[in-house]
């Protein structure tokens, strides 16, 4: 049981990155970017290509993937979301276009991996030797610690940015009330574009973490985590970053316990049951409150 909790924490940490991305975008424009799963996959593929195929190391691989996916996010905003916002059209149009974008990116990932690799998946070696750490009957590895630690540092950095920097305050103001933010001198168009950039960069980070953690990358890497991250963000509270992290950890734990104690087939069932239960009990999510859009 305890071992399954430990496993779940690592899984939940990865979901936390994705869920945070969803929450950031939702807090800004009140829509869900359904392309996150595919962006996660693209990010992992890029990181693999740069770090392993070109031999430039995991640091540059991660940086390159995050920059490229961030740019993809910015393009998504500029082409699919910003025009609708300016015309004050309902955001479900943008939702549909990100759904289509997800299909396109997923197909690109499949075709690229099929043609370039001639293989279903490629190994993504960890940047260090994996050693096991045992405390009593609990086993985990230095890789588990690295994944959890990376996510924790990212979340702390994000929190610091949002609360202690001018840019973060601009983001908070825009999320709170964009019109007031404009009056206060905040260029909300740039803030929103930056959030799209940042959220897709987070997706790339999540994809890279997953690739290293599972030791391989395939074109279907992001399909399930993308959906799970979305569910986690809803469980934790739409538009709430802390809620996204909490929801992700809860989801990771529930999945791990369900798979370990009942059966693997219940992993997804548990996720959707948790979502339904949340909608019935508290539709705004655990930390969701009056601040909704």
């Amino acid at each position, binding site marked *: 049981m305890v*071992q*399954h909790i430990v*496993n779940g924490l690592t*899984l939940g940490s990865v979901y936390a990155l994705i869920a945070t991305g969803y929450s950031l975008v939702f807090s800004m424009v009140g829509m869900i970017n359904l392309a996150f799963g595919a962006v996660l996959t693209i990010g992992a593929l890029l990181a693999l290509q740069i770090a392993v195929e070109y031999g430039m190391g995991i640091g540059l691989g991660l940086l390159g993937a995050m920059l490229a996916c961030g740019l993809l996010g910015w*393009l998504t905003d*500029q*082409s699919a979301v*910003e*025009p609708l916002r300016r015309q004050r059209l309902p955001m479900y149009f943008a939702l549909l276009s990100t759904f289509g974008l997800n299909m*396109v990116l997923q*197909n*690109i990932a*499949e*075709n690229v*991996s*099929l*043609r370039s*690799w*001639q*293989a*279903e*998946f*490629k*190994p993504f070696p960890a940047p260090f030797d*994996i050693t*096991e750490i045992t405390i009593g009957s609990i*086993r985990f*590895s230095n*890789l588990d610690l690295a994944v959890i630690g990376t996510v924790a540092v990212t979340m702390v950095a994000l929190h610091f940015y949002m609360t202690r920097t001018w840019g973060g305050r601009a983001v908070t103001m825009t999320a709170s009330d964009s019109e007031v933010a404009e009056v206060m001198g905040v260029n909300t168009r740039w803030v929103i574009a930056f959030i799209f950039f940042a959220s897709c960069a987070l997706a790339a980070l999540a994809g890279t973490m*997953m690739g290293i953690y*599972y*030791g*391989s990358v*395939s074109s*279907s*890497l992001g*399909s*399930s985590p993308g959906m799970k991250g979305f569910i986690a963000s809803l469980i934790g509270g739409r538009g709430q970053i802390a809620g996204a992290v909490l929801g992700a950890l809860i989801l990771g734990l529930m999945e*791990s*316990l369900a*798979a*370990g104690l009942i*059966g*693997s*087939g219940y*992993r*997804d069932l548990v996720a959707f049951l948790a979502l339904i239960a949340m909608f019935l009990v508290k539709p705004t999510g655990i930390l969701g409150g009056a601040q909704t859009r």
Partner: protein
Amino acid sequence: MIRKIISLVVLVAWVLVISIYSTWDGEAASEAKAATAAEIHIPVIAPLSGPLASSAGREAREGANLAVKLINDKGGVQGKILILDWFDDRGEASEAAVLAQKVADDKNYGVVVAHFSSDACFAAMPTYEKAGMAMVTPWASHAELTQRSPISFRMSASTAIYGRLNGDVIAGTLKAKKAAIILANAEYHKDHTKYLKERLAAKGVQVVREETYMIGDSDFRPQLTNVVNSQPDVIAIVGYPKETALIINQARDMKYKGSLTIAPAAATPEVINLSAKNMTDTYMGAGGGTYTEVLMGKSAANKTVADYIQAFRSEYKKEPPASAGWASQAYDVIRVIAVVMQKVGNDRKGVLEGLKATKNFEAVNGRLFGADRAQIPELGISKFDTTSRQWVTIETIK
């Protein structure tokens, strides 16, 4: 104005990207073209996209296309050119069922070569049976595949053979007392496990844990936690390549020191690429033994196999894939269909009766006896050598 231009440019770029990728592969799943009088079309339904495309799908095309080329070089079938019409079922039962209806409705088709997975075969079988059309699967291996319908034929040996062989590896070669099994929640895997457990029970090996997973899963730590805690001597992994490789890696990451066995369906180069360094003490029971070594170019003992190897090397400038045998199975199926059609033409009833009557066909993978499984002359037990990164036959069972 500038933003509109940017949006338009991005939109055009996306359309171009979609167009390029959708038309890049000339052999992508295509609509069947109308048959002319000088052609015979055979539909082939295989996983051309999705998780199995790069392994099973690619090998399927290589093997089948090679057979067609050799047949057409010798004048075709009844003087007509043989053409394969490819359809993509992604290895999924739902897609298979839809495509089956499409193929069955086309009166130009006298037989269908399909599908990769046993699930897909079972889903599509009723449609073919209703249309009186023979379904010949090069790859699916469920033990009941040819028993559930008179129109069903196969080239691959039954999971009954491989499941029991896996049990022989665990009980005989490894002399294990306790075994754990991890399998995917799909027909082939469950069938293989059924016969594996039957053999283990007969040999007095206790199955201490059995865990399942969904095809497509990447995280097997929950299952492996339970398995490792049960302290088995051997973990039998019954899965497709990707999941098998991940399970091997994650088991060794958890410091499991016991032996591993894998199913032949996972014996692909991708598994070796991903998990070679963790495949110490890893075994596999497969059909072939000597055939596997022959396919790997080590021996030319059998002319049929030697000709296949020679033709494959000449056409594709590389060695034919050996262990999983998907390419050679597709090659065999096209050849046996061509032989039958040479006698009876492209008539559905004629082809069905012709396949039933086929005896002693010399296939690369053994002999095809009528409606049922290919007879594998030899079974082999292999151990993975982490130094040479190859499977080495350690025992041959005749």
